């Protein structure tokens, strides 16, 4: 994890603001095929996570750190299985966390 560019929390809507930058997100896994995970973000949209190296069952939540390749996909560097029971933070709270993560983020 490269902390010279700390990663802000994103959902599908805010991922748009951080394309080509390091981001952090939690998705609920809907499909997992050969390292490519399709998941539902916290605001209900679909995101594609590529480069997932750990087996994560469908309907589990997964946290991913990685580079946002497009406004709908993330290339994963680190994945963590958060299990099936995870109450997710909302879009608003995700933005509030940004100042604590990186002072250079403008939003």
């Amino acid at each position: 994890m490269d902390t010279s560019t700390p990663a802000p929390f994103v959902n599908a809507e805010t991922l748009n603001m951080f394309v080509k930058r390091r981001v952090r997100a939690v998705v609920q896994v809907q499909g997992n095929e050969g390292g490519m995970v399709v998941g539902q973000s916290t605001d209900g949209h679909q995101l594609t996570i590529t480069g997932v190296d750990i087996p994560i069952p469908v309907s589990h939540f997964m946290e991913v750190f990685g580079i946002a390749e497009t406004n709908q996909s993330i290339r994963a560097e680190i994945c963590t299985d958060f299990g099936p029971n995870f109450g997710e933070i909302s879009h608003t709270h995700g933005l509030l966390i940004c100042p604590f993560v990186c002072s250079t983020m403008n939003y």
Partner: protein
Amino acid sequence: MYGGGGQYDGAANANALFGGGGFMPSQSTAVPESSGSGLSKVRTAQTLLPLTVKQIMDAAQSSDDKSNFAVNGVEVSTVRLVGRMLNKVERVTDVAFTLDDGTGRIDVNRWENESSDTKEMADVHDGNYVIVNGGLKGFQGKRHVVAYSVRRVTDFNDVTHHFLHCIHVHLQLTRGKPHVNANTGNPNPANQFRVANNQASVYGNTGGNEVSSLVLSVLNDPAIIHLEHGVTVEYVISQLKNVPENAIRDAIKIHVQDGNIYNTIDDSHYKSVVNG
């Protein structure tokens, strides 16, 4: 005068005994020294603050020689961090690792004095999310944590909760006491929120909420607050000579709507809800 060694009568005389020079018992008879300039006088160094690594790295040093830190004006000694453990190194008497919470990395050291400590550290491995409680220390400009507790996260809602807790505490410390900002002369939106009816902040200019505060301070004045029927609008106007009459009347209406003041014997008498 101080004579031989047997003249020590008690703490009050210690300074007289040693007043001639040499070893000075610093603060031996004085009240406990205050905790540094400009910081909260409350003993907040006892509290556990949830923080992110970025907040720690941005924290100011409270004084050069003490290697203590201050976050949001509060002296910090014990912190809670939640993040991933990296580079765990097990040594004979301690375990060292790096904690990465997504906002930065910080070195953590956990001394193992008892077998329970060793058992606790054996449960956590590289890549695990952990909750670290410990003291924040600084040495030659570098900050690290001396942990007294390192627990593996089993319910990942703890991660979310920790960040929300960091936000909550940060907002409490920065906005929780609006009257602290009164002396800076900079009215900010946070002061629109009426925290208590006994705020007597007086600002130099006459913006909207300043008039509101002035009117309330007149009605909360200890000299008249005991009056059963309160005071008239004319009295408030006469007390605030530099403020336009219309602004005062408007402010009074808003206070009545907000429940800060009420009419008494007739429509022109008002009294504060604060008990005199």
